[in-house]
């Protein structure tokens, strides 16, 4: 990872240097978001490994700073730029992340409602979060940033949609092929050899083990 992050200096003409440059830019806000969510989740009502209550405020702060940082990378001066131009992989990462995030939050909101038991409050929070990210996408589609205009974002948003769909299809095909190969191999294997039925001595041994592990009152 260090090699990838330093690639803009070590191999400046390689396309991977743009990816390394992007990685260097998103490491900070991504780490803040992830650590924020971790602190919020485990400072709540968890039965084991509960963090102190003060960590909740720290988590909320980290999450908000991380999110505002990402938003600043789109609308403000923090956009990853390489050689005077916006890093091409930023235009891959940001729409893909936003699009999938709102879809996953929406799916999780309904899952909580239909699978969970009395989870309507939590589901509403998730709907709100999904709606918030959706509004953010809509704003990015109409409001120009300092370096990324609305038309560019819209163009890359649909490329991200095509990308996500293609990735899902490709991965599904590879898993299907994997399953077919395993199935064909297992089917070609000979039947396992039959073994002789247990003897009376073996039955008696099993019965003694079972008897040794049974116990308790009948009412239990």
């Amino acid at each position, binding site marked *: 990872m260090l090699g990838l992050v330093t690639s803009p200096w070590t191999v400046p003409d390689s396309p991977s240097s743009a990816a390394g440059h992007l990685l260097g830019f998103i490491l900070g806000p991504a780490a803040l978001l992830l650590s924020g*969510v971790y602190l919020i989740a485990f400072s709540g009502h968890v039965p084991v490994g509960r963090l102190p209550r003060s960590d909740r405020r720290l988590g909320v702060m980290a999450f908000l700073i991380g999110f505002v940082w990402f938003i600043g990378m789109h609308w403000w001066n923090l956009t990853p730029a390489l050689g005077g131009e916006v890093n091409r992989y930023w235009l891959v990462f940001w729409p893909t992340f936003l699009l999938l995030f709102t879809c996953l939050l929406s799916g999780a909101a309904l899952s909580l409602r239909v699978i969970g038991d009395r989870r309507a409050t*939590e589901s509403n929070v998730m709907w709100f979060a999904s709606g918030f990210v*959706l509004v953010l996408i809509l704003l990015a589609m109409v409001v120009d940033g300092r370096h990324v205009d609305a038309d560019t974002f819209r163009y890359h948003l649909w490329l991200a949609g095509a990308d996500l769909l293609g990735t899902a299809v490709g991965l599904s095909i*590879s898993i299907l092929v994997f399953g077919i190969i395993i199935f064909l191999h297992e089917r070609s294997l000979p039947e396992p050899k039959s073994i002789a039925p247990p003897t009376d001595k073996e039955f008696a041994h099993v019965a003694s083990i079972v008897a040794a592990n049974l116990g308790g009152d009948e009412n239990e």
Partner: protein
Amino acid sequence: MNEDRLVFTWRAMLLAFLLPLVLLFAMDLTMGGSLGAGTDSLPRFGNAILTSYTLGSLVLLGNLFFYADSRQRPLAPLFGMLSAALMGVVVTVVLLNQGSLLMEDNGSIRAQIFYNIVHMFVSAGAILLALALSLGFTFSTITAQKPRRTVFEEE
């Protein structure tokens, strides 16, 4: 949960997952009607399928080593999966050779393949971050509520 209810639940969850996408689609059509990338989405879609298939096959090929450990190390599935991964590489090269069918803003086939791989890693990063955050967010909303007590009725 009976089977009909389960099927309904899965369909509803899939629809809920796709709902923001449909809303964005409708909004984009309302605002401009150009649907952003238009025909440029097709090469991206094709490249994403081929790259994710090939990389996914390679990852599953690695997974077969663990499978082989429990099956006296058979070679046939390894060769099968290796062939499947190579098929992905060959199909990619053949399709990229067909003029502008799958070529994006890259000068050569090698550059396009390399771009596809780097692009896939960047997309995978975005996907993993979105997955981790949505899971963490769901967990956070659950643990933020007051703990419940389940009262069991006496029989």
